[in-house]
């Protein structure tokens, strides 16, 4: 290594205090993000609580429930845009852990809303639009694929519960629809090459959801309750 006359040979204490300053700035950003994420989490919680109503909702009342929760989605959008504004450019992954879990929950809630409204599978595109975020890292604050997929797996669990509860309400058609939907979902997931991470573990649990739904379908079919 040649001598570098233009580089000032700083003392260790100076090097470290410079580093500390950078972290101090970062810490301020983190505190702000944490506060904003707390707000987002609260709204997500309220949204989840409201949507729980679907388990005791007759089929004709479902569209009403969906309309009722729309304002929460708007609130979520505005919280997310606040968080986006707090981020220095190109630092999504630095602070990602702060919102990772709430994003997974929001993906679940979005896909549930879409299912209840139209019986369709919400695409990553749909969910990103509902949340007001981008799809790709290059475009800015985006929806990470794994968070979206984890949301779908949570949806499968919720729907397996809904299959049971719709029978309680006397809706014998819904379990069949749910069965088809979740089978499709499961087929899609089997195309993925997953690593041994939380996504893989959650995917492994999907078969139990499927089993639960199949049992409901079987119980109905064998007694001819659906005709």
């Amino acid at each position, binding site marked *: *290594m040649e001598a570098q006359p233009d580089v000032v040979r700083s003392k260790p204490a100076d090097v470290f205090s410079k580093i500390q300053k950078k972290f101090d700035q970062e810490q301020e950003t983190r505190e702000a993000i944490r506060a904003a994420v707390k707000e987002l989490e609260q709204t997500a919680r309220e949204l989840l609580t409201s949507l729980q109503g679907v388990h005791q909702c007759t089929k004709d009342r479902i569209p009403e429930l969906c309309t009722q929760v729309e304002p929460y989605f708007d609130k979520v959008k505005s919280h997310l845009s606040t968080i986006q504004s707090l981020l220095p450019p190109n630092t999504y992954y630095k602070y990602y852990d702060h919102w990772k879990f709430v994003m997974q929950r929001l993906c679940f809630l979005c896909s549930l809303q879409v299912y209840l409204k139209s019986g369709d599978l919400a695409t990553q595109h749909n969910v990103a639009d509902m949340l007001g975020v981008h799809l790709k890292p290059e475009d800015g604050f985006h929806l990470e694929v794994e968070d979206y997929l984890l949301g779908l797996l949570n949806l499968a669990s919720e729907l397996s519960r809904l299959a049971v509860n719709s029978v309680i309400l006397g809706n014998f058609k819904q379990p069949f629809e749910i069965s088809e939907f979740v089978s499709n979902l499961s087929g899609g997931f089997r195309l993925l090459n997953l690593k041994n991470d939380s996504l893989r573990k959650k995917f492994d649990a999907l078969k139990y959801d499927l089993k639960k739904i199949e049992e409901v379908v079987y119980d109905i079919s064998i007694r001819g309750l659906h005709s």
Partner: protein
Amino acid sequence: MNCEEKSLKEAQGHTPELKEDVFELFSSFQKQLDAKYDKHERLVKLSRDCTIQSKRIIFLLHRIPTSDLEETDKEMSSCSNQFNDLISEADQKLQNVAVILKKIAVELQNDDPERFHTAYTNGVQEFIEALSFYVFQKERRLISLEEAKKWLEMNVHETDGNITKEESGLDHEERETKLGLDQQEEKTEELVLLTIPFPLSDIDYLLGVADLTGELMRLSINAAGSGNWKLPYSILEFMRELYCCFLRLRPYISKIVSRKVTTLRESLFKIENVCYRIKVRGSEVPQHMLVDEENSKNSPSYIQEVTENFDAEN
């Protein structure tokens, strides 16, 4: 239809309940996830190469004989040829590691480096440990973060960076297009790739320097063992300065840093012990016997203990 598309179609055939649109959707997820995991793996491999080579550089630097080293900068440059040979060999090897880091930088060029940080952080830390140890052996001081960054940029320009098409991390289609370019353009392409700066983070620098203190502890023990009693005192002073720097850091920066500071403290105590023994024993024991006394540190059981600690840390 290539291999992957064929197997996807087969998968669809095996799962008749799979609707076309769901199939399309998840096929694209498969591609996205595969690409992400593959990149992660490539980075892990590069990082491992980096770690292995850096560790060898550290062993090389330990082979610098401590018996005839003086503590002042002036006398250092005029000492044995062995010192100069080992130092320049280490320099060369560090430059080779810098090329590997360059390859990592090339992989990361279109991404946020933080996204894959866990994949390559160990390699970088090991490199910083080796680089800072090199600078310490040569100039008895700590390399700063800025200097480390500059060193990386400077040295890669000087190397004959032969990054092959596979190693540049370009994906299949990009590679095929590149092969269509003529030789001249290829050379320019490679040189352009070399100018991508490596994103050296503050954390990796701190962690690497924390690991350096372990090597300094070993250096001081070896020095005392070979009869050099001035060097442990210099190292002690240097270590105390570093310890204070680390203590001043606020703990929220990183849990890992806090953990390493505990190890640093223990290394510091060991060095203080060495200096204590030199001071105490030096006054009552004839010189040649003290050398033998310190050399008992080369006894199998002591080396075992040191090695076990080393393995536990790594």
